[in-house]
């Protein structure tokens, strides 16, 4: 019905079939910067999310990666309707939820849940674990024995149900994140947005939580939008991965495709920057990007990555080509199941030379 043409060139994997669970179309979010003596005028905008389009299919995990400030968390909050988009459309389960009032949004709130980075900060320290996990039942007035359902949930996420009456501070970080997972799971949502769910955890615990999330996905046929800055974690858990830079979606492909054949120079730079650990010998050709990410208040013209792009300089013999500077490259298919927004995408296997410091 409202499923209009999706401009995204379809990137599929074995997990993507049928109608998407979530589609965002041209999603844009600007945070106004105001100034004025009495009446505040908007003088600028932080362009947090700029014209982002993608879909998430039932049962899959879409990874969303990028550096801090790239707009990945804002995108997640827009989909959860914790923020209102400046423009664009969000279709959930075939229905346009972009402009639903909070009352009409309520049934969808059950279907979209979030898991946050800091498990402690997101749990009310004055509520017992049972109350925290049971709260969604109370809010959405579900029938049945709440206590039993909470105990079942606790058991399922690997918490001892006898700890029903304990408080968050009595748990370790990993257990607290299990509480967060149980709370998100309580109402059997269709989509769970995981915003850096394992970043605050010790490495030995990270794996436990990641495995739990995978098991729950299989068991309850969950769909995940998984946000992380840890590229290893994202690769592990995602079916498809979207890369964001300065508010823009710059590349989207299946996980293996993206990691093995990155086509956008930014993705390539990002991957090469990751220490390779024991697998690789000493990496010598890390693409060390120059400088910092530009301000989202005043983003560069043309391709947002052009001021730092090694490929552009390579193509232009040290100068950044005109189109990179002036025209925003569209998200185009560079290969089946692989889209990137670049005028000069890398060829498969092409390795970027390390950029000398300017």
């Amino acid at each position: 019905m409202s499923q209009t043409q999706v401009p995204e060139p379809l990137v599929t994997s074995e997990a993507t079939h049928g109608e998407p669970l979530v589609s965002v179309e041209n999603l844009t979010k600007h945070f106004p910067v105001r100034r004025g003596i009495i009446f505040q005028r908007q003088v600028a905008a932080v362009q947090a999310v700029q014209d982002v389009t993608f879909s998430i299919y039932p049962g899959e995990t879409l990874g969303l990666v990028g550096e801090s400030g790239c707009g990945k968390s804002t995108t997640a909050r827009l989909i959860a309707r914790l923020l209102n988009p400046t423009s664009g459309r969000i279709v959930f389960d075939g229905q346009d939820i972009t402009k639903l009032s909070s009352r009409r949004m309520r049934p969808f709130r059950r279907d979209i849940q979030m898991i946050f980075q800091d498990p402690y900060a997101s749990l009310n320290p004055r509520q017992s674990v049972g109350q925290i996990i049971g709260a969604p039942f109370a809010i959405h007035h579900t029938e049945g024995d709440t206590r039993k359902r909470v105990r079942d949930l606790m058991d399922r996420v690997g918490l001892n149900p006898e700890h029903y009456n304990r408080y968050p501070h009595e748990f370790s970080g990993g257990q607290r994140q299990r509480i967060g997972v149980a709370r998100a799971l309580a109402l059997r949502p269709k989509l769970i947005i995981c915003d850096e769910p394992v970043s605050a955890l010790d490495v030995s615990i990270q794996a436990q939580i990641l495995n739990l999330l995978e098991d729950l996905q299989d068991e309850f046929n969950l769909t995940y939008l998984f946000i992380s800055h840890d590229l290893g974690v994202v690769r592990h858990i995602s079916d498809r991965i979207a890369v964001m830079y300065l508010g823009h979606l710059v590349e989207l492909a299946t996980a293996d495709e993206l990691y093995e054949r990155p086509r956008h120079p930014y993705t390539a730079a990002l991957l090469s920057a990751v220490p390779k650990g024991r697998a690789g010998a000493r990496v010598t050709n890390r693409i060390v990007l120059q400088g910092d990410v530009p301000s989202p208040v005043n983003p560069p013209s043309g391709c947002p990555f052009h001021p730092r792009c090694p490929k552009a300089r390579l193509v232009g013999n040290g100068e950044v080509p005109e189109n990179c500077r002036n025209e925003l490259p569209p998200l185009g298919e560079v290969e089946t199941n692989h889209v990137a927004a670049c005028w000069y995408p890398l060829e498969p296997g092409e390795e970027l030379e390390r950029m000398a410091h300017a």
Partner: protein
Amino acid sequence: MAETLLEVKDLKVQFDTPDGVVKAVDGVSFTVERGQTLGVVGESGSGKSVTFMTVMGLIAGNARISGEIIFEGRDLLKLPPAEVRAIRGDGMGMVFQDPMTSLHPMYRVGDQIVEAIRAHRDIDRKEAWDMAVEMLRKVGLPRPEERAKDYPHEYSGGMRQRAMIAMAMVLNPDLLIADEPTTALDVTVQAQILELMEQLKSEYNCGVVLITHDLGVVADVSQKVMVMYAGRAAEYGTRDQVFNTPLHPYTWGLLESIPTVERRVERLVPIEGTPPSLINPPRGCAFHPRCPHRFEPCDGERPELEMRGGDHPDACYLAIEDKRRLWAEREQRRQKEPA
């Protein structure tokens, strides 16, 4: 032969708390040599930070410290506080995890570096300022003359960490201790910082200690690696020894539980359970309750870090053949998995 800068022998650090005595560091020994990077890996509570805060003399007064910390021939634990202070920041510099909070928000970056210089060198402000600017240039800060006059909040995260490094390195210390220097940074910035540290290390020919939970980072830049668990070293060897033929099941667990960008495994193998309490650590090997290979002696005597037939010291009772076999099996399992 490399010159030994720092030798720590049987260091113990204990804190009295209302709940009991916290044995934060429980007998750790290691050395750092000039021109070498020692990577120290472990999870929170493993004692890695406390060890080096103790080396720096930055541990609060209520701690009980024993052992020896020999820096350039002098035992820091026996020196009067004033002399330790004179070494701190001059002979040894330290960089901390969070560059957002580690710089004083109300003083100019340049002034903070100047302060570090003038705490140890009797030179005038102008000269110190020039030194600070020069150092900022060296750590890759663009337009250092102007940026030195900025406040920390006007810097990006990466720049702040560069400034911290400049502050730690400005007096050309023999030893740089970096405590999770890149954990709070984005991956591309992390790469820049690690690069910078490498570069400075070779330029100044100092020793570096890199404390991190990120095995990838350690593998990337360290010559020697110490894996810590519950206040002790689980194993201690060269980078290749620890990463290619790890001897301790905890190290195995760490290596296997971390998803990497290069390859995808079907299922991660986590270390079950949670890190132990430091007030009432498990008897014997502190790791044994979480260890899949535990056997008879593990909950008896505590295993010391020593050569146990392998090519580097470890603290596990398993026979060396078993260690080699078990590690080989694990490696095989990993290799088998479809990529």
